[in-house]
């Protein structure tokens, strides 16, 4: 069982409020290691500089959206093994299907609860300690 505190996470969202919500939700699950980026391009730079174990990314973002970031992460050998969870709106069924094609590991529908976030993360990493 992986320890949540050992998972390094990159949070990518153009809204500061949403990044803060994700961060505090992850902290409640036991995560301790975070970095943040405010758009897909910045997220990709962060990943190339220092790959994270887990990327939690919004879809709608300026410069490079969540799908673009996912494709870039999967195309770059040092980062392609990272787990990737996409945040979506409720009407984004088509987006989820496209994200699956590009290798997303899971998706999370906004607004989400801490329990839902935990379920999605554990769906990727297994039960967390």
């Amino acid at each position, binding site marked *: 069982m992986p320890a949540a505190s050992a998972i390094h996470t990159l949070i990518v969202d153009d*809204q*500061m*409020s949403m990044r803060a*919500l994700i961060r505090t939700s992850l902290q409640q699950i036991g995560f301790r290691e975070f970095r943040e980026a405010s758009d897909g391009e910045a997220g990709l730079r962060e990943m190339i500089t220092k790959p994270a174990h887990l990327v939690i990314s919004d879809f709608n973002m*300026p410069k490079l959206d969540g799908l673009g970031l996912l494709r870039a992460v999967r195309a770059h050998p040092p980062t392609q093994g990272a787990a990737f969870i996409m945040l979506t709106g*409720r009407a984004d*069924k088509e987006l*989820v299907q496209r994200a699956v094609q590009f290798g997303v590991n899971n*998706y999370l529908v906004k607004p989400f609860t801490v329990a839902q976030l935990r379920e999605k993360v554990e*769906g990727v990493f297994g039960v967390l300690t």
Partner: protein
Amino acid sequence: MASSEPPAPAASVRVHVGQGEHYVTSDPDVMLTTILGSCVAMCLRDPVTGVGGMNHFLLPEGAGSGTDAGRRYGAYAMEILINDVLKAGARRESLEAKLFGGGRMFDSLKDVGVANADFAERFLRDEGIAVVGGSLRGSGGRRVQYWPSTGRALQRAVTDQALPAVAARPRPVEAVDAGALELF
């Protein structure tokens, strides 16, 4: 040929924005309208492109502005309007907002209107979006009219009788229709 007749006013299209809804347009003929009690409406626009819109939200029952549930729901309600305004061509750095609502209603024990108003102000401060007008808190309801293309907004007080019944909880926004797509 000169005419002494004043120009006819442009045809105005009224769009009502109900609780849990939002609407975005760049059409200068569109006027957005809503009726607010303790709910809050954010009127948002980019004055450069003339793209704008309005939402109308109420934090979940029992979830004040400082609670996790309140912030989660509220941040999402704001985000979907911001995203749609940006998708329609607005630029984030130009966005300006007017906030209305958050009134104290006679039939409520807790002042949920203040919680909604506090949340909206904090959200816009955190996101760096300028608040250029509006009217929050106070007592009673408001009818709001907003023209996104110009940023003009009008409000007038309404009596309790004119206010729509507020749903006990916001419309559920959970879950993609997951029956159609389940991963893993």
